[in-house]
């Protein structure tokens, strides 16, 4: 049986294999192989169900970087199991669907590699207990999402959408990372479960609220909450299976997972409650409101996803109230909200997945998703129509579909908010159900648009009447989801008892009794039901005046939108970066060297001066013989004449002279190996220089202006001076004894008498190995510099 860690890594392993099994002219669609992965994982996760239901949880630790206490701890409990099942279950359906959606002409190898990468990292997010590991997987989902959105990278829109989503989600992710680090500062642990216990007495800590806000930033950007929602509609450039999978069913729910996971830590805090619930409500409203404006079905679904995510988010906000110290945990009121949130989460995945797949079918079969060009498809595509109908009605919150149940529970939770008399909720709390209700009206309208504008009415274009129903394979996956939509409505408690309730207990670790009422479709004529009826009536009226309603959107000027803000700030930063960079990156090597040397001189010189570190004594110096004097003086003369000379040949010969003199120095220093090497190297180097001279022109008599030369000289002299002063100080005040005596036992330790060679070949063989590799790289570099350019020709030096 698969262990949990293996479960996370199975998709990664499979994605590694894909390049090897994928061939463009393969007869069998590679999706069939990929399909095995989520199916196996789904079955594996199902086997955990019975024990999770008992309230058990499983941990599995694999040491990764034990020194830093970073271990791969996988943790499975009710909450992560829900997400795990969604990831693998919807994953299997999406892969199956994609087999029919993407044909052989696409680059399937890339597609499935990215998809598996995503699947693995998403599983990593929900099963990690260690915050740093969670963060790593979190960013991996952003990256795989980026790759998948840009799957059709030839399109400008795809590239734009991919970049946008990456920028926003990674920005939020970085915020979350800082939040995690702050939490670590507070509690001293990276384990989420340990934090539950440790945080309780530490809520007054100064970093508590910043950490909370930063972690929420990560969650909100990922879950496309207002005002970070702008990336999701642009992400719809991805292939439809991807939209169905990442951008409605799984990845965008990672933020919700984080909120749910951290509710035990932050729940009961006023900031948390307001941030989560208000953001959720605004997103719910704005998403639904904007969805109606859209004419592209996928964009419409994107906004509806944003709106639904806001709904779930606001429910989690409300549910956090039950962790307020004055509330006894077992009061049903607010814990029910968490239950509703999870319930709606699952429902949303079913109906939104089905709707996306239907839209994909339309796109695939007809070639457009614009509702202005669609219409009257009911007769030609009856099965697609039925699925769309079921999905939309469920989304609108109508019986007999699962959306109805969770929508009623949502109203119930919102109505209960103003019963709470902290955080001045008994006054503001009235707004909650009102906003929720208005948003629901919009939700109803856009749900109706999806069905009626596409499938009813007259075919607007000729090709629509030739439309044919999609193949069986393509319809299978959305049909399964549609069946689930209906089944959940009839047997909601099967889902609730087995999967949802254990998760609620994970959000509220202290929750005791089994108080949950079973979900009922009919609970009398109460406020919630009247609200739903109101939604239907008002919604129908507005839908009837759909055209007039559109005028409302004209009131919002385009340049004030968040999209415009994003685009403009991107341009602004681009320019800012370019202007600042071009100020100092002048393209002149001389300038760069100046930066380096001036910084060095000032920094080191100032430190030397400030710390009063300069010291000098001649004690301990070896006496200087006549040979040393002669060599030293000739080197100095050679060096100076090297600057003065105007002949390149002279300069090279002088360089050789310095090299050979240093070889002589090595002899005097009793370093025979060095002397030998230096002599040979210097010979070869001089030969090289002379060879290169063959190609290079003579030095012209044109010399640099005096001012420039003076500048150069001042810099050079000050670098030399600082260098000498530091070296003298180091020599005069030794702080450590030499470690060389260790190597002097080379004969016993390595069986060799030559200490230098023993250091190179044995004690520090690793360095030598790398040195050989550097040498090798340099050789190859020289070879390619010469040969590669020769082949390509000289004219394309600047590829503009």
């Amino acid at each position, binding site marked *: 049986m698969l262990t949990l860690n293996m479960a996370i890594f199975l998709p990664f392993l499979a994605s590694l294999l894909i390049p090897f099994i994928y061939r463009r002219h393969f007869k069998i669609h590679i999706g069939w192989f990929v399909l095995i992965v989520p199916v196996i994982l789904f079955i594996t996760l199902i086997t955990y169900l019975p024990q999770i239901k008992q309230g058990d949880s499983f941990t599995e630790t694999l040491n990764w970087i034990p020194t830093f206490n970073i271990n791969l701890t996988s943790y499975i409990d009710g909450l992560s199991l829900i997400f795990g099942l969604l990831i693998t279950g919807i994953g299997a359906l999406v892969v199956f669907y994609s087999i029919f959606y993407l044909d052989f002409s696409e680059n399937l190898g890339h597609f499935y590699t990215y998809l598996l990468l995503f699947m693995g990292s998403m599983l990593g997010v929900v099963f990690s207990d260690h915050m740093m590991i969670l963060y790593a997987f979190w960013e991996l989902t952003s990256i795989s999402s980026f790759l998948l959105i840009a799957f059709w990278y030839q399109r400008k829109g795809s590239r734009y959408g991919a970049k946008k989503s990456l920028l926003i989600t990674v920005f939020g992710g970085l915020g979350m990372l800082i939040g995690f680090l702050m939490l670590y500062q507070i509690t001293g642990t990276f384990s989420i479960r340990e934090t539950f216990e440790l945080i309780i007495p530490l809520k007054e800590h100064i970093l508590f609220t910043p950490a909370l806000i930063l972690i929420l930033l990560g969650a909100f950007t990922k879950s496309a909450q207002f005002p970070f929602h702008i990336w999701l509609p642009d992400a719809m450039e991805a292939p439809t299976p991807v939209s169905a999978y990442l951008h409605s069913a799984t990845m965008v729910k990672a933020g919700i997972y984080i909120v749910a996971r951290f509710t035990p830590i932050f729940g009961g805090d006023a900031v948390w409650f307001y941030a989560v619930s208000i953001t959720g409500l605004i997103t719910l409203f704005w998403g639904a409101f904007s969805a109606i404006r859209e004419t592209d079905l996928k964009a419409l679904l994107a906004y509806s996803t944003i709106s639904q995510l806001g709904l779930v988010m606001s429910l989690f906000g409300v549910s956090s109230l039950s962790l307020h110290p004055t509330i006894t945990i077992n009061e049903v009121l607010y814990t029910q909200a968490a239950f509703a949130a999870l319930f709606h989460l699952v429902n949303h995945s079913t109906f939104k997945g089905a709707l996306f797949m239907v839209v994909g079918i339309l796109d695939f079969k007809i070639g457009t998703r614009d509702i202005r060009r669609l219409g009257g498809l009911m007769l030609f595509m009856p099965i697609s129509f039925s699925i769309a109908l079921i999905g939309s009605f469920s989304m609108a919150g109508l019986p007999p579909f699962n959306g109805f149940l969770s929508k009623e529970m949502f109203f119930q939770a919102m109505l209960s908010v103003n019963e709470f008399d902290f955080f001045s909720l008994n006054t503001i709390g009235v707004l909650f159900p009102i906003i929720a209700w208005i948003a629901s009206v919009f939700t109803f309208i856009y749900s109706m648009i999806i069905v009626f504008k596409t499938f009813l009415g007259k075919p607007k274009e000729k090709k629509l009447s030739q439309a044919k129903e999609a193949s069986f394979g393509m319809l299978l996956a959305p049909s399964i989801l549609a069946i689930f939509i209906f089944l959940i409505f009839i047997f909601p408690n099967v889902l609730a008892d087995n999967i949802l309730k254990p998760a609620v207990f994970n959000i509220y670790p202290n929750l005791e009794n089994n108080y949950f009422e079973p979900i009922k479709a009919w609970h009398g004529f109460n406020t919630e039901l009247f609200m739903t009826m109101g939604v239907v009536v008002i919604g129908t009226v507005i839908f009837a005046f759909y055209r007039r309603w559109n005028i409302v959107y004209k009131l919002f000027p385009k340049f004030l939108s968040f999209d415009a803000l994003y685009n403009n700030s991107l341009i602004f930063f681009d320019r800012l970066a370019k202007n600042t960079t071009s100020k100092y990156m*002048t393209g*002149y*090597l*001389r300038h760069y*060297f*100046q930066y380096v040397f001036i910084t060095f001189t000032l920094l080191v010189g100032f430190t030397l001066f400030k710390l009063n570190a300069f010291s000098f004594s001649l004690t301990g*110096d*070896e006496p*200087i013989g006549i040979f*040393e*004097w002669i060599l*030293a003086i000739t080197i*100095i003369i050679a*060096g*100076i004449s*090297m*600057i003065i000379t105007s002949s390149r040949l002279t*300069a090279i010969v002088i*360089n050789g002279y*310095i090299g050979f003199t*240093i070889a002589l120095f090595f002899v005097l*220093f*009793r*370093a025979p190996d060095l002397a030998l*090497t230096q002599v040979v*190297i210097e010979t070869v*180097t001089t030969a*090289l*220089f002379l060879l*290169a001279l063959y*190609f*290079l*022109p003579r030095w012209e008599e044109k010399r*640099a202006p005096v001012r420039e030369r003076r500048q*150069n000289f001042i810099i*050079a002299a000050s*670098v*030399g*001076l600082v*260098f*000498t002063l530091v*070296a*003298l100080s180091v*020599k005069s005040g030794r702080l450590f004894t030499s470690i*060389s005596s260790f*190597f*002097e036992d080379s004969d016993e330790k390595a069986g060799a*008498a*030559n*200490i*230098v060679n023993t*250091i*190179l070949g044995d004690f520090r063989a690793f360095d030598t190995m790398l040195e050989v590799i*550097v*040498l090798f790289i*340099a050789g190859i570099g*020289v070879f390619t*510099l010469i040969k590669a*350019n020769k082949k390509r020709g000289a004219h394309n030096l*600047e590829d503009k």
Partner: protein
Amino acid sequence: METLIIIVAGILVTVAVYLLLSKNVIRVILGTAVLTHAVHLLIMAMGGFKGDSVPIVSQKETSFVDALPQALILTSIVISFAVTAFFLVLAYQTYKYTKTDDLSEMRGVDHE
């Protein structure tokens, strides 16, 4: 002797920096070569010149010259050779296309 060697190294560093700041490619490359020489001298001086014998173990000798700087320098000599060779080839290949060995003229066009 250490002091003398350090001063020689300091003067070589001055020469090297002056060469690096000039505009001619060959001068810059020579600058890197001279800088290497200076650093070798510095490392030797830092190790000190005490000890009676070359660092090769034999029966009659007991104190050796510090072997560690020598090992470091040996590595450095070979690497600097490789780097110098690479620089040279880079320089003359660049010259082939740009027809100048003046670094201030080699500056490319601004890319968007």
